């Protein structure tokens, strides 16, 4: 009797989760199905959620994949995102490690700064940052994106990793010092490896931030060949209010794939990295 009740409850849970999940993925499915319709069928009546058999086409994908620009935009996005996560991982782990482990003058201020800059939205600084980018002559360059993205994600990354490092027992450090190690050795052999899950989960966030960033890239990048994917996608909204939705969605689907792969590969570390109580349990 009791077991039956539990089973029924579980069934309900599956049902509710599946329904909510359906809402969660429905827009995506609609996007994919629209990308498989010819451009002319987008205002057909009655509208079809899935393309008709005789309407099904991959012409939008063919068009997108024939554009050399698409590959350049794709590579740009990838380069910018990878560079951002690599730099941010190194810099924020170092910061987090020092703040978590040592008392040095200005430590409190530095951490206060981390928190404070986490609060101010990146876009709010777009005007002075643009002036800075022009001053540094990095406008219209991928280098105009990377350091700014890194600066945007450092506070959150540092905050998360610091929480994780604080939970690593200090005995581990002491053991290294006793063996004749120094700060660098502790950083390399304790802090970096043991905060791995935190670094990984933060890096996924950072990757997404850089991969999908729109306002800054829109402002700084000019050339077609230097644009990142979000700018390229929004660039389909051409003159004269004429939008080829099929192309827009085909490109969107294509740009979604790498993120999806990365997420599915790393998702099991994702939740773990967020459990700041990690080691102490």
């Amino acid at each position, binding site marked *: 009797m009791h077991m039956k009740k539990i089973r029924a409850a579980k069934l309900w849970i599956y049902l509710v989760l599946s329904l909510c999940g359906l809402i969660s993925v429905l827009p995506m499915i609609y996007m994919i199905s629209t990308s498989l319709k010819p451009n002319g069928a987008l205002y057909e009546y009655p509208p079809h959620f899935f393309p008709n058999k005789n309407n099904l086409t991959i012409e939008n994908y063919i068009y997108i994949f024939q554009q050399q620009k698409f590959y350049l935009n794709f590579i740009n996005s990838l380069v910018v995102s990878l560079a951002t996560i690599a730099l941010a991982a190194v810099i924020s782990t170092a910061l987090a490690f020092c703040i978590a482990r040592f008392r040095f003058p200005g430590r409190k201020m530095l951490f206060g700064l981390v928190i404070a800059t986490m609060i*101010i*939205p990146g876009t709010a600084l777009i005007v*002075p940052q643009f002036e800075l980018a022009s001053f540094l002559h990095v406008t219209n360059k991928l280098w105009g994106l990377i350091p700014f993205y890194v600066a945007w994600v450092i506070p959150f990354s540092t905050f998360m990793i610091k929480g994780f490092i604080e939970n690593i027992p200090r005995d581990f450090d002491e053991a290294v010092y006793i063996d004749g190690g120094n700060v660098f050795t502790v950083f390399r052999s304790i802090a970096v490896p043991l905060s791995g899950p935190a670094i990984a989960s933060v890096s996924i966030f950072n990757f997404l931030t850089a991969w999908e960033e*729109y306002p800054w890239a829109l402002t700084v990048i000019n050339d077609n060949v230097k644009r990142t994917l979000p700018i390229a996608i929004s660039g389909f909204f051409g003159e004269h209010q004429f939008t080829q939705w099929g192309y827009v969605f085909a490109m969107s689907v294509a740009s979604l794939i790498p993120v999806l792969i990365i997420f599915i590969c790393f998702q099991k570390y994702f939740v773990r990295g967020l459990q700041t109580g990690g080691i102490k349990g």
Partner: protein
Amino acid sequence: MEAKSFKNRLQIFLLLLPGIFMFAVFTIYPIGKLLFMSFFQSGYGVSLKDAFAGFQNYKMVLSDQTFRVSFDNTLLYTLVTVPAQMAIGLLVAVLINELPCFQVGFRVIYYLPVITSWVIVSLVFKYIFNTEGMLNYFLSQVIHVTGGNIAWLDSRWGGLTVAMILGTWKGVGWNMVVFLAALQNVPKALYESAAIDGCGPVHKFFYITLPSIKSTTLFALVMLTIGGFNVFTSIKMITDGKPMHQTETVLTWMYYKAFNEGQFGYAAALSFIVAVVLVFLAVLQFKAMKNRDEGE
């Protein structure tokens, strides 16, 4: 400790250096510059010299009708989407946490909107909520709830509603993951002893789960409030502030003022006001977080 030797001090300094450098150049300097710019009347062009304007820009922002509209919109967006995503995200996390299998599958499904970029999901929503779009067809012709097509994107409240639905829909996954992480840290023993006492699932949720994830809840609250004020891309893509700047948010209005009209001084003052409001809100929330932590 060992850290006191010169070599170790130097090493600490070297580790800190890149971070401090990035902060100084790309964050602190721009914040200073922002404050500076907000006191100058700067405009486009080589011919126009910046002139000191005192509090003129701030006065202009605060007396600007559209700024008020955009501020109200942003506040409404934050007040609606933050609790909505947190509630749904928590519910989903609790339910997923109960499951013996398929956890990963559900996690991926719910996380899909989070990993899809704002540009893409905004376009998808714009397409779905189009006056002639799928949703209206579904509502009026398939389930016959509405008499005719609703012009979702054509009014202030309609446009904001779409943006808020989008914001909530996209944010649920993030909350789910954050809460799932917190839930898995709640000691199982607590639930077991509650079960022995004969507590039902609702009781368990309110008396065990909620108190145990308090700090995560506050963390999510702070992050999402910041995110709510940061809303930009969805509005830019879906309505672009139309009609008549009625759906602008603080940042889209700032962007418009800066890059369409060239009023950098105005934009800087606006950004600064937003930053101050956010710092104020966050300090409040952090204070609350600290107090609760100490209370435990």
